[in-house]
């Protein structure tokens, strides 16, 4: 088995597991409300807009634009992720904002509104291997 980077633990459990199971198949699905049609993220029990519990896992295109970013220069995770590393906030085509990591670029190349697309990074946490959705430049 190849070594993959370690990451801090995911939140797992009903609903959360579904998200990561789709990621393991190389696709990103988010909960979409059957009543109002809006996407909800992070994982919820009911639609954050209309309260309906009729949430379905719908695929998203993985295309988005860069809204904001930041770079950790302080080691909050005791070396689990080597610093510095970036965080980005991506507005997905379907609407929700998704907090992630940049793949293959840093804050130096980041531009507001820049187009990005989904890719996956093989990682490992205390529950095992998983595919982490991250974003690269188009």
């Amino acid at each position, binding site marked *: 088995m190849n070594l993959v980077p370690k990451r801090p633990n995911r939140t797992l459990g009903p609903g959360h597991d579904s998200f990561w199971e789709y990621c393991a198949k190389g696709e990103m699905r988010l909960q979409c409300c059957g009543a109002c049609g809006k996407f909800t993220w*992070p994982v919820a029990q009911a639609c954050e*807009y209309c309260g309906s519990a009729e949430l379905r896992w719908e695929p998203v295109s993985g295309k988005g634009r860069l809204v*904001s*970013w*930041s770079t*950790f220069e302080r080691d909050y995770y005791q070396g689990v992720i080597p610093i510095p590393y970036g*965080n980005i906030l991506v507005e997905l085509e379907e609407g929700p*904002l998704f907090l*992630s990591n940049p793949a293959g670029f840093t804050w130096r190349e980041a531009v*507001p509104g820049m187009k990005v697309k989904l890719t996956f990074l093989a990682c490992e946490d205390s529950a095992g291997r998983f595919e982490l959705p991250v974003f690269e430049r188009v």
Partner: protein
Amino acid sequence: MKVNFIGTRYLTELLLPRMAEGSAIGSIASTAAMGWSRVNTSAAVLDAVIQPIGRPAKPEEQVFFSGRDQQPVRELPQRCGNQRRWRTPGPAGDGPPAGAGGMTGNRSRVPPPACALRDKAAIIGIGETDYAEDYHSARTRAPGAIPLTAESLSVTAFERALADSGLRRADIDGISVSYIYGGPPPEEMASLLGLQPRYAITNGNIMAGPLPAVCADIAAGKADTVAMIYAAASRAIGRQYGGQTYTGDQAGTPASYYYYHPWGFSSQAAHWAMVCTYYLNQFGLTEDDLAEVAIQLRKNALLNPNAIMKTPMTLADYRASRYIVRPLHLLDMCLVNDGAVCLIVRKAELSRHLAHPAVLVSGWGEAEVKQNKLHVLVRERLRPQIQESLAQCLAMAGAEFSEIGHFEGYDAASMHLVTQIEGFGFAEPGTALARFRSGDFSPGGLLPVNTAGGMISGAYMHGWNQVVEIVRQLRHEAGPRQIKGLQMSLSSLAQTDASHPILYRRGA
């Protein structure tokens, strides 16, 4: 002699039924027990002797990026078996279990603003610990130094507040405790302070809900004079914000924003960095512009003898300070220090002709982001919620926005303060940094802000020290940083996903 004999015998008799076979009691009496008969000893003493105290509570500001937050209802006091004591149901000081609901901690809910509650209670006594001295002694870790505890800090703050108020101990008939990292239940704290309250509550932790909650209870007749105690012994246990769990938290509770851990995202610094990048881009501003906030707060701190930071800060100092989460530097972030604050809050009609002018609590408001959280927090910077809560607050107080002459905003980070200044409308969006540079928010400016140095350069007392500063300013006792003729102040001391302004007036 009488005290020593009766006190020792009383305690011995209480302990006897709990002793194991073959154990013994050694009695040492001293005059430190003076006044014992005024203290409600029975169960409180036993609890203190037999059970370790200190129950961790989670800072409630850590809630917002964590998915769906629960809003626990504030625990209401209930009579327990002993008719002289109040007890809060459940484990005092504990919040709901951390988990899918997020890190809400022991959240104190703000009572609904109502005109009937306007000016019904006043702050008439203030007490703080020696923030600067305690900070430096904790950092130097002097050999043999005893770590500060919630108990020792609270006693200091309370005694100072009592002396400041000019009241007698027996005048205090209520107690409210708000701990960040745990502390004894309110009944035990009352015993420690020599109080016999008819009202005793555990009341959230950071300064969002606790003050309105007590004002509403005073208006309802539950108590006339309440000692509100806040304590944080964070540095003593080596707390740090961020990471998989809080360092120093033995329970292993996940840190804030835990949902984003796999992407390495946690901490207040991370949130404000994300907000800040968007803000600087939106208005074409730079890190040097942002530096104006920290530089002004440091100037203010230099006028406050109890402020922790005591050296002037230049732009070069700011640039040279390390990044925590880029674009935020160390000097953009609040301090972490130990301390306690006591506010003595009294029914307004009993608050005239005391040692100092009373500071009336005139109004408050609350609004929280419920939907599309990341969008509202990053792109709208909570402005709709801040505006909504301000409207509630002004309506309750019967005040005009233009009457506000001083603002104390929760500065967990420089960017946090900017969002509030612009959100309340003290500056148009995108202009706050330029107005810091021009001196508009300095103690002599158009709207003085965080005049004691805030939490970035003054002390990180989760907003409580900022209420103390408001009291000093409205009493006209703030010395070299006094705002001339000040009559009304606004505080905004809250979580990052909610706005809780409180409006204060100088009493007649």
